[in-house]
């Protein structure tokens, strides 16, 4: 550890020395930063123009900075939306006024519409919040969330400026003699002074948006966090947000506001993902080179989403570069990745990435017989094709495939594969109706493999999901943003298939019949704009689910718990015949009252239904846990969520704070009986019970999003309880409420990023959370000489609290101005102080004496350093 720290400090000093900034430029940067802090306005200026300005040693009245900078120079400035100040050559304006004066005498200039889209060359996507300005007219506008802008400009020839955060400002001569459509691509700036500091969202979005409990995280922000094993990870980034937690390292998925991991809808380009983890959550399945951004809805869920009762995590992939070919990738200690994107034709772009992990070479060198026989690896690949059919129609084909294999020791292996495909057709019907139609497929195959003769087997399960959905958006002036659509999902669930590997194996094949179901949903969502201050939206979704045959359904004796001894009849259902159906309305209602641009109150109420359930009775969810549809005995999971939040920004939106309260009433959830057998159980319903639950909590966020040092502190207090009221022989916790496996009342997260110079950034995260519930022994006894442990009621104790510190550093290597090669290296240390955070406690008779013993399992018991070299060529 000492060597690592010495190395890091050494690098820090070296890089700091290398990356010395011009003192005049640094002074200007400081002044501009102070100006912004004091006035809330950001100064935009071209890099080449800096030397022409009068940069003072110090300024007494900061508000006069723009005047001081331009005084006596050939430059002028204008104010844009009260948020930006554009400094530009005064001659442009003077020429224009001179011309205008002449023309005005003759006739009034005709006004034309100029619209366009600003794209990002680095991320191959559109840039939201980018600025298009024409200094001659002292006119500017910013792009919307899709990178589009539209502005009315009088006829003439102008110099247009296109700017965005961290990008080279582009200047173009624009001849406006009719309606005009522009398409601009901005390239990344590598200069020390990041003059244009425009966020890709509205500065006050957290206050003014009407969606409580929604978070959007661009990949650029995720890259500021310390990577685990060199990989920027979408899921790990989400875990740093308030209200999002996990039961520990190695567990698949995440928990949101007291919900189980199956209660989160995870979408990649609109396709649901049933397991977002590689290698048990050490990596997520999202390749950083393929991801544009991630949006998490944990409060009010838009009506277009459904099927889960806790949250929606929507991952958007990147489109290919429309102009040039690019290559990028990274080489790490355990995994590497490679990506390529570019234009196939003027109308078609491609983006492709591959990634593979190769830890086996390490395992083979560890002096442990079990590890020598162990193997683990994964691979994944993304492919995306964007094709513009015409100005109103475009197609996006997105494909993803991944494969995982894990074997510990020689006997048992686990494997799982995800295959996703979506075809999205975006179109405009007329001027005001936009349509997004998505055909989606998601396949998940998972198996447990026995590799010891004569018990070689493969126990397979699967999910096949097919969907068609269409979203129509009204973009007219009145009711702008009204949405409506439909969604039809079809599920085929492979419930378990045990196959011997050879005829000599002592395994009887077992086949549990597949389950099938279809879900139909209709939805609509309308914006509410009662005034500028009071806005929101109201959505309604109706979903209906039908469990379909062919299937045989056992009938059990009434008014008693289900058991195989109590089967009284068997009902046979033909293919396509409805076994059972459920449905219900899912209202979504949210309101925001803005007291000012920096202070608002938001509230929402929503209901969700879930017809698909993950069955797990393990310490945490595993990738090979069984998914099941609702059926004759297992109804849908249902939840109402109530959310209230206060949002306040300070210091001109550079400091964001929020305080949210939520209460979730889960009137129907699925639980398992003690000792449940969930695999290869033809009478699965005998081991499952319906229960109810509730969750409540408070989430506090304090975020600084500007300056050399930025980051956030979040604290969550939350509780979540469950209860099963059923017959006495299958009672859990005597029929009383018990804490869910993921009930962790206190969760504190600190995220910070420090960027002293452009090329180097340091980052750190710290997380503390209460230990999760566990079931402890209450006594011991022996049966036939075999020690048996008797346990207390479920989840009545807790393992020790969890805390962890991660540190990271990113260094961008020097790049010549016109160089096509760019690279950076990330260094990180996960779990810096090597705390052995308990994942679980378990209890066994000692192998030597039969004395009962207690053990702690720490999934990560040491500090994990990593280094990854990343590159891009364009």
């Amino acid at each position, binding site marked *: 550890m000492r060597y690592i720290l010495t190395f890091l400090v050494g690098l820090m000093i070296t890089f700091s020395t290398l990356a010395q900034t011009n003192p005049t430029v640094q002074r200007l940067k400081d002044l501009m930063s102070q100006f912004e802090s004091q006035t809330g306005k950001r100064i935009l200026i071209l890099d080449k123009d800096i030397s022409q300005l009068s940069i003072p040693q110090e300024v007494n009245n900061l508000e006069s900075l723009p005047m001081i900078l331009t005084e006596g120079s050939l430059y002028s400035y204008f104010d844009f939306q009260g948020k930006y100040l554009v400094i530009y050559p005064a001659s442009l304006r003077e020429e224009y006024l001179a011309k205008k004066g002449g023309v005005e005498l003759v006739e009034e200039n005709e006004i034309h519409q100029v619209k366009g889209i600003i794209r990002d060359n680095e991320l191959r996507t559109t840039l939201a919040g980018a600025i298009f300005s024409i200094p001659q007219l002292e006119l500017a506008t910013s792009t919307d969330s899709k990178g589009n802008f539209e502005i009315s400009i009088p006829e003439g020839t102008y110099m247009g400026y296109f700017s965005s955060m961290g990008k080279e400002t582009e200047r173009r001569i624009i001849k406006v003699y009719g309606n005009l459509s522009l398409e601009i691509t901005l390239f990344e700036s590598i200069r020390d002074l990041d003059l244009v500091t425009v966020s890709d969202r509205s500065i006050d979005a957290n206050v003014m948006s009407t969606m409580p409990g929604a978070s959007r995280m661009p990949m650029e922000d995720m890259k500021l966090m310390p990577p685990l094993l060199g990989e920027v990870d979408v899921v790990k980034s989400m875990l740093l947000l308030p209200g999002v937690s996990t039961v520990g390292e190695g567990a698949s998925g995440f928990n949101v506001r007291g919900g189980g991991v199956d209660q989160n809808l995870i979408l990649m380009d609109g396709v649901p993902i049933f397991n977002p983890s590689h290698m048990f959550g050490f990596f997520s399945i999202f390749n950083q080179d393929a991801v544009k951004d991630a949006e998490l809805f944990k409060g009010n869920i838009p009506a277009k989403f459904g099927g889960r009762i806790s949250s929606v995590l929507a991952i958007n992939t990147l489109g290919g570069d429309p102009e040039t070919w690019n290559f990028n990738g990274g080489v790490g200690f355990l995994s590497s990745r490679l990506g390529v994107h570019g234009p196939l034709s003027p109308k078609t772009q491609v983006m492709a990435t591959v990634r593979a992990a190769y830890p086996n070479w*390490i395992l083979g060198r560890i002096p442990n017989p079990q590890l020598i026989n162990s193997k683990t690896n994964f691979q994944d690949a993304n492919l995306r094709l964007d094709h513009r059919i015409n100005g109103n129609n475009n197609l996006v084909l997105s494909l993803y495939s991944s494969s995982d294999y894990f074997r510990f020791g020689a006997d048992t292996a686990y494997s799982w594969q995800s295959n996703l495909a979506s075809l999205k057709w975006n179109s405009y019907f007329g001027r005001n109706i936009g349509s997004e139609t998505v055909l989606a497929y998601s396949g998940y195959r998972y198996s447990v493999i026995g590799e010891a003769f004569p018990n070689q087997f493969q126990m397979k399960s699967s999910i096949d999901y097919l969907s068609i959905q269409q979203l129509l958006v009204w973009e007219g002036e009145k009711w702008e943003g009204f949405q409506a659509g439909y969604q039809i999902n079809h599920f085929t669930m492979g419930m378990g298939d045990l196959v011997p590997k050879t005829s000599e194996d002592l395994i009887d094949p077992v086949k549990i019949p597949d389950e099938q179901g279809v879900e139909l949903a209709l939805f609509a969502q309308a914006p509410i704009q009662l005034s500028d201050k009071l806005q929101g939206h109201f959505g309604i979704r109706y979903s209906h689910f039908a469990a379909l045959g062919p299937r045989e359904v056992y009938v059990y004796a009434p008014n008693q718990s289900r058991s195989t001894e109590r089967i009284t009849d068997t009902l046979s259902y033909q293919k396509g015949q409805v076994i059972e159906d459920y449905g219900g309305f899912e209202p979504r209602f949210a309101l925001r009252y803005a007291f000012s641009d920096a202070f608002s109150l938001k509230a929402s109420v929503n209901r969700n239904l879930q017809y698909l359930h993950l069955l797990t009775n393990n310490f945490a969810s595993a990738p090979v846990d069984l998914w099941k549809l609702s059926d004759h005995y297992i109804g849908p999971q249902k939840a109402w969520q109530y959310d209230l939040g206060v949002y306040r920004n300070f210091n001109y939106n550079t400091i964001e704070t929020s305080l949210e309260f939520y209460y979730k009433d889960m009137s129907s959830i699925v639980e398992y009986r003690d000792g449940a057998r969930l695999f290869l159980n033809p009478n699965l319903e005998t081991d499952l019970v319906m229960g109810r639950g509730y969750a409540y909590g408070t989430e506090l966020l304090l975020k600084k999003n500007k300056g050399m040092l930025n980051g956030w502190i979040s604290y969550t207090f939350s509780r979540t309880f469950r209860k099963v009221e059923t017959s006495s022989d299958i009672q859990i916790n005597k029929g009383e409420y018990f804490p869910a496996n993921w009930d962790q009342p206190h969760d504190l997260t600190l995220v910070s990023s420090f960027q002293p110079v452009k090329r180097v950034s340091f980052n750190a995260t710290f997380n503390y959370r209460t230990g999760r519930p566990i079931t402890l022994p209450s006594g011991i006894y022996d049966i036939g000489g075999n020690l048996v442990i*008797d346990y207390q009621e479920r989840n009545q104790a807790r393992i020790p609290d969890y805390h962890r510190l991660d540190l990271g550093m990113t260094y961008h290597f020097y790049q010549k101005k016109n160089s096509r090669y760019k690279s950076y290296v990330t260094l990180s240390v996960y779990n810096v102080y090597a705390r052995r955070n308990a994942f679980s406690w378990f209890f066994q008779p000692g192998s030597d004496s039969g004395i009962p013993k207690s053990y702690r399992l720490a999934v990560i018991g040491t500090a994990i350093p990593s280094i990854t070299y990343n590159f891009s060529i364009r």
Partner: protein
Amino acid sequence: MKHRSISGLFLGLACFFFSCVDEITIQLKEANEVLVVDAWVGNEPEETYIRVYKTRPFVSSSPQGKESQVKLERIYVERKDGKVFPFYLHKDSLYLSELPIPLMEGETYRLKFSTLEGDTFESAWETVPPKLESAEITSKAIEKTTLVYSGPNVIVQTRTFADVQLQVNDPGKVVMGYFVETSGISEQFTSSLQDNCECACYLPDPNIYPGMNIRSNQSFLGKTIEYSIGEIPLSSLGRYYVNASVKSLTEFGYEYLNQVDLQQRNTGSIFDPAPFRVRGNITGESENSPEVLGGFFLFQKTSFEKLLYRTQIRTESNNLNHHFEPLVQVVATCRDVFPDALPEIPKVFNP
């Protein structure tokens, strides 16, 4: 130095990939005293008994304390035809049958008892499983990777073992379980400079199978199968005596012991079930009766034995890389290095 650093790095990564397990001591605030019944009725009178007692507190790394007794008014096993076999208190919490129980395959029995407090309990009806009549012990040499500790260094070596197997001819009558317990006696040689050395010692192995060897016949009903019942190292010269006792169990017996086995193998990982109370087949007659742990088990036991010749097993597997431990030199008796050796040469080793 470099080698040590690399090893440390790999071990660190091992800790990352495959977790770290530490023994801990937990002070439990509460301990329930729950009634336990450990009732075994089978074709072996000396292994037919009932124990009724209460659970003891779980104390980490501490030997089990004395079990607290439960005073009973009456306890007996009842055959479906109404015949009753009463049990008497023999010692502490141990009850033995007053009469021999002539178990016959297919007969149905249950356990009933009542406490001095007036609570009455009974088990589910259990049917006597068939006896395993035909089985044979076999062995074959295998190679396994093992860790060899040499001072502070750990070396990974491939060693050879005899995989002891039981060839079972399942009667194919009903679905039932087999619970196999394998013990053995290892003949260990030493060397000495003295002529009258007692250089061969016989070391008892109470169990050569790690954990509980419990298996259902559902996948091989009526078939002949062979499965592992233990392993013995082939690195010494002496013979090895194997004794396998096979108990046929009812479906309940199999399910119960299987859950106990699952509990004992639990390592707290994401693939292991969260802990839970193992439920038996005994319930109170009234709704307010206290819960009873344990169960009523019917069994038929058969024993099989074989003397294995390590030299012969090695000869039959010349293709494997056999490794021999050098003989330990003693002064006059091998008991100097094998203090737990049996006092006499077991008969099975006599010519």
